[in-house]
Each structure stands twice: as structure tokens, then as C-alpha cells.
């Protein structure tokens, strides 16, 4: 559970695959075991920022350190969950997927199996250990992805709109589950979303980004007690305030 320091990170360039949504002069400090949501309109570079923190992209300027150590590439101190269900390896069962990181780490088998099963239990999938991903629903696949990212015990969990492709009901369940998992594991979490209610439900702090240039506009602290009630007046007030921050964006849309 490490703190993260992001200092003056910028990245604006063309790749063969097209232009990356740039980020300019982003600085954020995140405490150990803090849950931070990054919200912003599409094109604000929030996913780019997450990919920089994950080490998949190198920033043009600035630097990021996790627990005092500068980030130079991908590393096992971070677990990553993407939006795309296809992130799971189809040729491995749920258990095989969750074991992958442990295998890479060199954890031997009885132990590896035990940890992987434990992680699947944490996301309430203990009955589906031997299922292949294509037999699982979208929500279950994302839960496997979360278990997989937690299994090798990284100190930081990076999540890129992991529930955006789920239906509303499943998404609510998943948010509750993630809040529980976080309470139990106390990982430092950076969670990218464009869903305001989701951010208010999950985050200790919400970083609001604006587009053109992609930079931090404001940071909002959410002081609501947990577990949070999305129907309470305080919750709705927070949501309104956050909407207000987002609403001043160029196109006036919340997402």
C-alpha cells in the first residue's frame, strides 16, 4: 500500500496508431490506501494518464514515483484492470488467469493454487474456478480480472473504466463488491471513469480533468461515511457538486 506521486507529467505525440489523447502538466499526490477516481470528458487524457502510471507509455516530461521509487516501466507493484472483457486469456480457466501473475512471480503450485482460489473467493467466484472466460458473463469476467490483478499482491490497483461496458444493475453490484474488496485489501486505487455517481460512490478523492489541454482542473474530496448510500441527500449533493465541476467544460457535457 504505497503512496503515489505524479509530478508535472506531460505527453503529447503521434503514434503509428493515431494521436494519443494528450496530458499536460498533471500533478497529483495520492496517499497510501487511498481510493482516487479520475473523471473527465472524453478526450481529457485520463486513460493516457493511467497507462503512463501503469508504465505502458513513457511520459515526455515529468515523473511518477510509487512508494518513493520512480516508475520506469510496467512492474509487479501495480495491478491493472481494463474495460475490455477480452483482457482475460481465453485459453486459461478463471483459476489459470488468476494464477498467471503468481506463476510469473515463481510461486510454486500448492501455494499458488491456494492464493488464486482465495482471490476468486474474494470476488465471489469460488464456484467458477474451472470455467473458461467465454462461459462467464461480462460482470463475472471483470471480477476475474480484478482477482487476477490482486492475486500477486501489488500495492497499487489501476482500473480503467472496468465497469463501463456492464449493464446498470450489474454495475451497481460490482461497485459494491469493489468497495468491499478495497476495504479488505486496502490497496491504493486509481480508478478512471466518466460516471459521476460511480466516482462519488467509490472515491476518497475525485480528480476532475479537463480536455484541450488534458490537465487537472480541480480535486474534490468526498467525505461521506462508508458504506455510502447513493440515495441519501448528502450523496446527491456531492454528485451535484461534481457535475458542477465537470459542467464548466468546453462542451458542457458531463461525459
Amino acid at each position, binding site marked *: 500500500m504505497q503512496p503515489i506521486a505524479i509530478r508535472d507529467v506531460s505527453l503529447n505525440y503521434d503514434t503509428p496508431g493515431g494521436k494519443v489523447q494528450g496530458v499536460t502538466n498533471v500533478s497529483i499526490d495520492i496517499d497510501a490506501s487511498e481510493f482516487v477516481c479520475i473523471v473527465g470528458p472524453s478526450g481529457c487524457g485520463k486513460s493516457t494518464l493511467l497507462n503512463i502510471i501503469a508504465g505502458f507509455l513513457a511520459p515526455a516530461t515529468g515523473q511518477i514515483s510509487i512508494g518513493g521509487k520512480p516508475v520506469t516501466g510496467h512492474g509487479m507493484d501495480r495491478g491493472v484492470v481494463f474495460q475490455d472483457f477480452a483482457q482475460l486469456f481465453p*485459453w486459461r480457466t478463471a483459476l489459470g488467469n488468476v494464477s498467471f501473475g503468481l506463476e510469473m512471480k515463481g510461486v510454486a503450485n500448492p501455494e499458488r493454487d491456494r492464493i488464486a482460489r482465495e482471490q476468486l473467493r474474494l470476488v465471489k467466484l469460488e464456484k467458477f474456478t474451472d470455467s473458461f472466460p467465454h462461459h462467464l458473463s461480462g460482470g463475472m469476467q471483470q471480477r476475474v480480472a480484478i482477482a*487476477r490483478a490482486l492475486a500477486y499482491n501489488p500495492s497499487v490497483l489501476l482500473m480503467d473504466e472496468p465497469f463501463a461496458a456492464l449493464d446498470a444493475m450489474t454495475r451497481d453490484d460490482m461497485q459494491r463488491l469493489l468497495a468491499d474488496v478495497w476495504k479488505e485489501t486496502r490497496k491504493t486505487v486509481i480508478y478512471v471513469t466518466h460516471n459521476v455517481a460511480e466516482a462519488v460512490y467509490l472515491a476518497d478523492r475525485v480528480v476532475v480533468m479537463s480536455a484541450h489541454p488534458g490537465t487537472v482542473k480541480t480535486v474534490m474530496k468526498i467525505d461521506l461515511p462508508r458504506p455510502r448510500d447513493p440515495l441519501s441527500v448528502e450523496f446527491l449533493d456531492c454528485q451535484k457538486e461534481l457535475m458542477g465541476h465537470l459542467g464548466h467544460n468546453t462542451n458542457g457535457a458531463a461525459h
Partner: protein
Amino acid sequence: MQDAVTAIAIADAAPAGRGAERWRLAARNIFPFAVVGTIWEIVAWAGVFPHRLFPPLEEVALSFVNLTISGVLPHHTIETVLRLLGGFALAAVFGTAIGVMMGRSRRAEDILLPLVSIGAPIPGLAYAPLFLLWFGLGNFSSVLLVGFVAAFPVIFNSWTGVKAVKEIWVRSALSMGADDKRLFRYVILPGALPYILTGLRLGLAQAWRILVAVEMLAAVPWGLGWLIFGARKFLNTDAMMAGIAVIAIIGLLLEKYVFQKIENYTVVRWGMVAK
């Protein structure tokens, strides 16, 4: 030939659960053959064509049995299958290696792709005389040619397969601490497997199609291609058709029992291709 599989799969796709249902299905599948067989018999017995050129089916069956008992047909078959396996093994090993290399390294792709693209549009058999000229008549040339021709689909598909491995798998594996070697073994190879299998299957089909003709041209002493070609000289149409029947059976078995089994066990089970 890829398509043949689907045909077979669909022909017996209906769940063969209850007995009556199964009989009905079998009858339905046999019926067209019975019709064609009857027409054949009528034409053969009517004497429209010379008897030697158009033998009735029972004579074909008889000659099939006789040739099998005497060991001639099995000998031809074994030689052919060995050549097929030899050529296909060459294609599988070198084709996959080259294709994967092209998919992994930009440099290898730049260097090899033009060479492969020039060789590919020429029908394989057109190389046959050249190979026979260079490497002489016989086994060596035939196996080499079969391997050479079968390698093209293997190369193309493994190359595409490696390039089609999802970026998100690579990223996930990297974030979980996979190094280059393990990334290749645990992610890229299984990720590219549907394509590699398709390539192997097309390669085998290709090898099979060409081998029969190669055996006719390469003057090998044994082999099904040689059997049917040689039978022509003595107007042994019945032996020829027995040989063709074996060729058809092997083709079917290769499709249905070799590749379909492998696919069912791997990529179909993983949900990477639709059944």
C-alpha cells in the same frame, strides 16, 4: 478444405441422442449415395460406355477387397501417408517458425514477406518439374515439394496470427510481470493458436491435394497417385477407382479426426472460434 469440415460438422450436427432420430439421420445421409450409386449401376449395366472404362460398383468393391487382401493397396497407402506426413512435418516446423518470426520481428517481416509473396501465387504443382529437375525423380523431390507448397499457408496464417494477438493480453501479461520469453510462450503462442491451426489445416489440405499429382509425375514406385496413374495404362478402371476411394477416405479422416479433434480440444474449448 476448411469448408469441408463445416460441411461434415453440419451433416452430423443434429444431436444424435434418441435412436429413431439417429436412424432417420443416417438414412437421410445414405439416401443420396444410394441414388447416385443406382444411376451408376444402371449406366454401367446398360453398356453405354465400354465395360472396362465404366465398371459397375460391385467390381470396384471386389477389386478394392482383392487389392487390400493382397497387400497392394495398403502398401501404396502407407507410402503415400508417409510422404504426406514427411512433407507436412517440414511445412509445419519451418512454416510456423518462419511465420512466427515474421510476426514477432519487424526486420524479419520486411525481409521475408517479399520472398514469400512472390512464391505464393504460383500453383504448387508448377514447381514440380523444377524440383524433379533439380533433385531428381523420386521420394526426396516429392517430400520436399509437398513441404514447400504446404508451407505457404502455414507461414501466412502464423504471421497473421501473431500480429493479431490482442494488445490487451500483452499488456495484462506484462503488468503481471511476464518477461519476453514467458510472454511468448504463455501469451503469444496460445493467442495465435487459432490462426496457426487454420494454417496447419490449410497446409495439410494443400499437401494432400498436391501429393497425389506429385506421385504421378515423380515416378515413385509406390503410392496412391502412382497406383491410379499406372492403372490407366492397363485400363484397370476398377483398381483406379479403388485407389480414388482410399484417397477420399484419407482426406476425410484427416479433416474430421485429426484437426477437428485438436481444434475442439484447444481453441473451441477456449471459445476463441465459434464451433
